[in-house]
């Protein structure tokens, strides 16, 4: 048994009387190398740990919960956190719906998130990969004037969740990525672009993929102008589509629904999106970088249909939001007492990016979104963001555009989806991405 599991069991075992204890312990290590102008600019090698504890007190009108966390696993730090969590719980309001998860008999999927090749690269190999990423990005196109940072990162992490109600799980994962930020320059003008390659181990990464991505995204924006103001079809590429799905997901959280903070509340069974739109949350799919066998409360991950053929089919819940809604957890507790989608994917359509551009004929391709945290309100559905991208004319990519906003509402955008690509890209983060075309978007430029 691992040391962190032993620690978690020991602390969870201190629950007494009307008290329940849930402990999450995480430990991990990571390496981070940044290359700049042919040498190592930064090299970080670190191990870190986290201990968080929730104490639940049962009372006459329901339960109360207090939380505490610390970054150190020594006895003194852990004991202090336990004492604080107990103290915090005493000040909360009793609530009949509060509860910790109980084992529900659903078996966790057997998915292995640890690459057997994780240790294949030496430190020198990792440094060389970062240096090579910078060289390849600079050499790949004469217009690349600067590489802000070329970075190699890998990490290994393990976590355990143990509670006095019988939850007792341990998970581990590895991951690695390359990222590069390039600046292209031509005729006195700069444009930036990011490239990425992601895997479960350094040996799975492709310098060429990341470099090519950054070069294309920066050089294609050279000569960008303001788009003409119009109402047209916007084609989100896999990266911006992934961001869009992440934004929509907040309205699918059962917690937001029961608190009356979702524009989807009370609409299960209704048509909320175009027929082609089928959205699932599936952390059991090993292809997804957010895959995990269990959720933040230690319950088994499961596949949950959210929108099927355009009809709203359900929401995602953790234990508490499910009790408020009169249903059962869907295995969607995130860490820190939050409920939400975990690994979104959209059912692929039949066409790739180029075919969708041809079908759309006239419109705008969205390559990057800016101001998402300020310009989108997942409660009201108001949507207004800055973008960069390319115009689409005669079914072809045309001039690059910048200093442009696109606006609509999330409710309307879902109904206005006219095409979904087959070009699914497994990206780090909440949602996989593929091309999505949405009609009747207000574009404001010149």
């Amino acid at each position, binding site marked *: 048994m691992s040391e962190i599991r032993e620690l978690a069991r020991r602390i969870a075992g201190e629950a007494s009387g009307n008290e329940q204890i849930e402990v999450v312990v995480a430990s991990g290590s990571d390496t981070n190398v940044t290359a700049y102008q042919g*040498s*190592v*600019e*930064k*090299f*970080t*090698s*670190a*191990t*870190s740990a986290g201990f968080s504890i929730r104490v639940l007190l049962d009372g006459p009108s329901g339960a109360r*919960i*207090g*939380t*505490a*966390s*610390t*970054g*150190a*696993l020594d006895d003194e730090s852990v004991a*202090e*956190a336990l004492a604080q*969590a107990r103290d*915090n719980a005493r*000040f*909360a*309001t009793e*609530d009949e719906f509060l509860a910790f998860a109980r084992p529900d008999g659903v078996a966790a999927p057997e998915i292995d998130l640890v690459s057997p090749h994780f240790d294949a690269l030496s*430190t020198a190999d990792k440094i060389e990969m970062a240096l090579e990423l910078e060289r390849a990005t600079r050499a790949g196109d004469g217009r690349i004037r*600067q590489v*802000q940072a070329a970075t190699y990162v890998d990490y290994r992490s393990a976590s355990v969740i143990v509670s006095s109600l019988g939850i007792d799980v341990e998970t581990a994962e590895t991951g690695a990525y390359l990222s590069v930020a390039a*600046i292209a320059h031509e005729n006195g003008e*700069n*444009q*930036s672009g990011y490239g990425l390659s992601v895997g479960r181990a350094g040996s799975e990464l492709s310098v060429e993929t990341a470099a090519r991505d950054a070069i294309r995204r920066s050089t294609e924006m050279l000569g960008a102008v*303001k788009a003409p*103001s119009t109402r047209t079809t916007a084609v989100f590429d896999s990266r911006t589509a992934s961001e869009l799905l992440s934004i929509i997901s907040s309205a699918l959280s059962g917690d937001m629904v029961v*608190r*009356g*903070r979702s524009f989807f509340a009370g609409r299960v069974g209704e048509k909320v999106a175009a027929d082609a739109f089928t959205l699932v949350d599936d952390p059991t799919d090993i292809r997804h970088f957010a895959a995990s066998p269990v959720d933040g409360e230690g319950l088994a991950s499961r596949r949950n249909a959210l929108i099927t053929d355009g009809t709203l089919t359900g929401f995602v819940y953790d234990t508490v939001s499910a009790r408020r809604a009169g249903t059962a957890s869907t295995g969607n507790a995130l860490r820190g007492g939050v409920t939400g989608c975990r690994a979104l994917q959209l059912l692929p359509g039949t066409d790739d990016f180029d075919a969708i551009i041809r079908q759309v004929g006239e419109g705008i391709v969205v390559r990057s979104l*800016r*101001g998402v*945290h*300020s*310009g989108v*309100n997942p*409660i*009201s*559905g108001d949507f*207004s*963001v*800055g973008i960069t991208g390319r115009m689409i004319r005669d079914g072809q990519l045309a001039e690059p555009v*910048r*200093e442009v*906003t*696109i*606006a*609509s509402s999330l409710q309307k955008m879902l109904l206005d989806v006219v095409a979904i690509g087959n070009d699914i890209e497994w990206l780090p983060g909440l949602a996989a991405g593929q091309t999505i075309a949405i009609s009747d978007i*207000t574009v*404001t430029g*010149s």
Partner: protein
Amino acid sequence: MATDLLLEPDVIDAVLAVAVANGADFAEIFVEDTRSTTTTMDQRRVEDLMSNRSRGAGVRVIVGSTTGYAHTADLSLAGLLAAAEAARSVAQRQSGGATVVAVGAAQVHAMRAEIEPSSVDRARRIEVLRAADDIARSHGGAISQVQLSIADNSRRILVANSLGLLSTDHQVRSRLNVSCVASGDTGMQTGRATLAATAGFELFAPERVAETANNAARQAITKMSARPAPSGDFPIVLANGFGGVLFHEACGHGLEADAIVKKTSIYADRVGELVASELVTLVDDGTCDGEWGAIAIDDEGAPASRNVLIENGVLTDYMWDYVRATQEGRASSGNGRRQTYQDLPMVRMTNTFLETRDATPDQIIADTPYGVYVAALGGGQVDTSTGDFVFGMTEAYLIENGEITAPLREANLVGNGPDVLARVDAVANDFAMAPGTCGKWGQQVPVGSGQPTMRLTGMTVGGTAA
């Protein structure tokens, strides 16, 4: 008293000696012990009471243009020496490098809060939440939900380096957030307000709590009758306070020396040039007492200072951390900051603001035949290589015939930094600052933004109305 130092001077000297042993030019140890609490209330229920403690140290070793970094939560001599060895692995020189100057007497910067958060009973925090909740709900039935949080953060840091520096700071911050949802025939609208300062529990004076709750409720109710924002280029009048985020995004990030030294900023090599309207004097000042970005020393031990970035439209200087300043043979401007001991410092803003001029806010509005009055802004985002930025209007109104009229729904503004700076054509005398959180390369730090009421001749409003 030595025990107040987070780490004994002889331990510090031993760690620094190991850190430079492979021939490094510079070594530093940063120690942090931060305690924070958050208490949230939703629909009158006290829901989450959270306490966190983050304590550890980071060792930084610089050799030539390479930085090595390692951090640890183990503050024993053995733990720190292991971190020093990991950090120095980037240095492979057999000789040369720095000689460690033994650290001198510590420059201790005491906490400036009147009431340290850990001395405050949890029940008193809950009283503040209940008071704010009652005030927000007093605005009537349209307010269907009130969500609040009260948080505090008590951060002790120690910085020591191979140049003999030993300095400490104790930064205490407190914050109240009030978020209201108003519901009606037109759907749901939200209103948010924040009271935050580099201060202790004394911040939560009843009148300031009331003002915050009133603002959140009023904003949500006002937006219920909001019409879609227009789409196109319009004159913009920004209310005083958090409008300063415009300058934070439009040019602040582009004046950070990391982007300057790498020549990825449009403002590189432009000191002495006219880069803004002559009405623009922009300052970054870590010493503004009580403001959200206030510090006594930065996270490299450099004292906070007042730095004029743009004076009457002319670019005068950039913001500097130790690494960039050393590369350019000058002193740090006190802008080297990091989120926690797990992070490397980088160039960051502190409190960034536009200085006042003579106009009055009323004159500026009266002089605007048609435009958009922005009363509150959400966050923003900038691409420093192009200067293109966006920021969100969370409370805005039309200006018609020199008067503020209909409320508008949320929308983003987009613009280009240099372009917008040139379009400042009126600046008032009603200075105010507001708190914010700035994210850069994955690290979040507290910053202040400020400005008086001001007008831009035009900016693109991304609404949906024709």
